[in-house]
C-alpha cells in the first residue's frame, strides 16, 4: 500500500467517523466508540489530517449557497451501478470473539487497517437485467455496493452473479463466501442461491459460505428463510412474493390450489420461528411465528424452510440435510467478514489452506505430523506471521522462506 493508498484509506475512515459521530449526541456515543475514535486519531498524523480535511469539507458545504444552481431533484433515479469500496465494519459491534477482546486495541486497529486487503479500485460495474458477475481472486477481498443499496462483502476466491430485477433480487453464490447487508425493499425479495440452497432475506445482515459442498448460513441481524432450490422454484412459479416468511408481508394465509379450505397453509407441525431443527428435504411445514411487523408469517412457503434469527446458524449439507439451528456468536462466526479467521481444534493443514486463500505468500506445512496438529485461536487473515509465531511458541519448528511466495514450516529437531 503506497502513500496515496494510505491517504485514500484515511480519507474514507475520516469520512466514516465524521458521519458516525457528526450527529450523535454525547449520550449516544458509547465509551467504546470514543475509545476507538481516540485510538484511530492516535494511530497516525494522517488520520488527524484527514479528519481536519473532512471537517473543512463540511464547513464548505455549510457555507455553500448555490444549491439551486445544481441540476438535482429530490427524487433521484436509482443509479444502476455498483461501486467498489473499502470495507468498513459490517458485522454488528460488540460481537467480537474473546480472543479479539483480549487483543490490545491499538493492535486491533493496526491489524484492521493493515490487514484488510481490499480492492479500492474505483471501478464501476453496470448492472443490467442479465446480471453481473463479480469474482475475487486469491488474497483479494472486495466490498460491492449493489444498485439497490445492499452491500456485499466478498471474501477471497469467491464468485457471485447478481441479477436485480423489478420484482426480485437474486444473487448466485457460485463459490466462496460473502457477507450480505441487504437493504430493505419489500417489493423485491432478496435471495441468495448457494448450491441447492436458497437464503431469502429482507433488510438484514447474514453470511453465506460454501465449504466442502456444505452451505453455512449465519445471521447477524434480522431474519432469513433458508430453503432448498426446489422450494424456491415451486414458489416462484406461483408468485415471486409467495416465498416469504421472514419478510414483510404478514398477509393472511391464502389457500393454494388443491388444498382444502382452512388448512392449506397452516402446518399442524408448525414450530416457533428460528428454532427449526430438521432437514430441508423433509416437509416440515411453514412457520407461523411472528414477522418483523408482529403478525403471522405468510404460510405460503410450503415446508422445508428453516428460519434463522440473529446469532443463529445452520449448515445445509450436500445431501439436502440440515444441521439443527445453532445459537452462535455471529461476530465470531462471521469473523471472516472482518478479516479474522477463527479456528477451533482445526488441523494445521486446514488452517494453512484457509490462510492461503487470503495471502499471496503461501504457507506450506512440511511434515505430516505437524499438518495433523490442531490449533485453536483467532488470527488476522492477512497476517500469517502471527500464526507462525503461535505455532513456534508451542512446538519446535523450522521456518524457511522460499523466495517471496512461500513459507515452509517443518517440525524442528
Amino acid at each position, binding site marked *: 500500500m503506497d502513500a496515496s493508498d494510505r491517504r485514500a484509506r484515511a480519507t474514507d475512515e*475520516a*469520512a466514516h467517523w465524521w458521519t458516525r459521530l*457528526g450527529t450523535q449526541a454525547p449520550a449516544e456515543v458509547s465509551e467504546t466508540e470514543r475509545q476507538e475514535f481516540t485510538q484511530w486519531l492516535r494511530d497516525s498524523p494522517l488520520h488527524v489530517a*484527514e479528519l*481536519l480535511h473532512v*471537517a*473543512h469539507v463540511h464547513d*464548505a458545504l455549510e457555507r455553500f449557497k448555490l444549491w439551486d444552481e445544481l441540476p438535482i431533484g429530490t427524487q433521484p433515479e436509482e443509479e444502476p451501478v455498483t461501486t467498489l469500496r473499502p470495507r468498513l465494519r459490517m458485522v454488528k459491534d460488540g460481537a467480537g470473539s474473546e480472543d479479539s477482546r483480549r487483543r490490545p486495541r491499538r493492535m486491533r486497529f493496526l491489524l484492521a487497517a493493515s490487514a484488510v486487503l481490499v480492492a479500492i479500485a474505483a471501478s464501476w460495474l453496470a448492472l443490467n437485467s442479465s446480471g453481473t458477475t463479480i469474482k475475487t481472486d486469491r488474497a483479494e477481498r472486495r466490498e460491492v*455496493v449493489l444498485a439497490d443499496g445492499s452491500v456485499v462483502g466478498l471474501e477471497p476466491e469467491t464468485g457471485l452473479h447478481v441479477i436485480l430485477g423489478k420484482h426480485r433480487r437474486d444473487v448466485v453464490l457460485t463459490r466462496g463466501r460473502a457477507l450480505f447487508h441487504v437493504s430493505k425493499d419489500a417489493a423485491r425479495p432478496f435471495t441468495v442461491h448457494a448450491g441447492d440452497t436458497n437464503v431469502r432475506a429482507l433488510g438484514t445482515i447474514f453470511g453465506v459460505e460454501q465449504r466442502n459442498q456444505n452451505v453455512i448460513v449465519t445471521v447477524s441481524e434480522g431474519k432469513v428463510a433458508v430453503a432448498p432450490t426446489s422450494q424456491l422454484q415451486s414458489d416462484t412459479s406461483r408468485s415471486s412474493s409467495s416465498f416469504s416468511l421472514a419478510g414483510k408481508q404478514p398477509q393472511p394465509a391464502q389457500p393454494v390450489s388443491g388444498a382444502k379450505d382452512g388448512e392449506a397453509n397452516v402446518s399442524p407441525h408448525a414450530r416457533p420461528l428460528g428454532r427449526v431443527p430438521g432437514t430441508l428435504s423433509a416437509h416440515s411445514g411453514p412457520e407461523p411465528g411472528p414477522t418483523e411487523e408482529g403478525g403471522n408469517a405468510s404460510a405460503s412457503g410450503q415446508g422445508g424452510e428453516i428460519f434463522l434469527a440473529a446469532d443463529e446458524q445452520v449448515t445445509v449439507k450436500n445431501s439436502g440435510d440440515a444441521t439443527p439451528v445453532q445459537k452462535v456468536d455471529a461476530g465470531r462466526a462471521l469473523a471472516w467478514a472482518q478479516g479474522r479467521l477463527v479456528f477451533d481444534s482445526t488441523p494445521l493443514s486446514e488452517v494453512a489452506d484457509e490462510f492461503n486463500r487470503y495471502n499471496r505468500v503461501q504457507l506450506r506445512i512440511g511434515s505430516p505430523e505437524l499438518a495433523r496438529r490442531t490449533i485453536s485461536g483467532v488470527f488476522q487473515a492477512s497476517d500469517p506471521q502471527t500464526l507462525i509465531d503461535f505455532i513456534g511458541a508451542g512446538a519446535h519448528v523450522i521456518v524457511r522462506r522460499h523466495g517471496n511466495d512461500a513459507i515452509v514450516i517443518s517440525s524442528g529437531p
Partner: protein
Amino acid sequence: MTLVPQNTLTEWFRRWRSPLRKFLVGRGAARVADLDDVAQEVFLRLLRYESAEVVQHPQAYIFKMAANVVAEWAIRSRHRLAHEPRWLNNLVAQDTIEEAFDNQVVQREIKRAIGKLTARECAILKLHFEEGLSKAEIALRLRVSPRVIQRDFETSYSKLRRELALKLTGALNHGRE
C-alpha cells in the same frame, strides 16, 4: 431549565472552527503551511495526553488542539516573519473570513466539486444542508434505508475531500481574482 448542548462532532468543530477557517483562508499568512502540518502538531500533542483523558471528549480535543496550534503559529509567524520584503506584496485589504468563504470563486469551486457527485449524493447533501433535513428524514423522503443515506454521506465527503483538496485551498489562498 438549561439547554444541554448536543456537543456532536460537528458542533465541536463549529465551536473551534473560527481559527481554523482563519488559517485556511488566510492568504496573507506569512508561513505557508497546510493542514497536514497542523495535523502533525496536533497528533504529537494528542500523544502527550493520557489516552483515558482524551477518551472523555476526543471530539473536543481534536478541534481545540488544532485551533490552538493555528493560533500559536499565527502569533509566532507574525513576530518572526514580519519584515520579509516579499510579504509586503501581500499587504492588500483582506476579506473577512466569511467573505472569503462566500466569494464567487470559492462558491463556484464548491459547486464544481459537488457536480462530480452522483445525483443521489447531490440530492442528499442538498436536503441536509439547504433544507435542514436529518438523515432519518432524508431516508424517508427518498424511500431508502438510513444506512444507504449514511453510506452516501460518507462517500460524498470522501469524494469532496479529494476533489476540493488543493483546488479549494488554492482558491481560498488566492482570494478574489
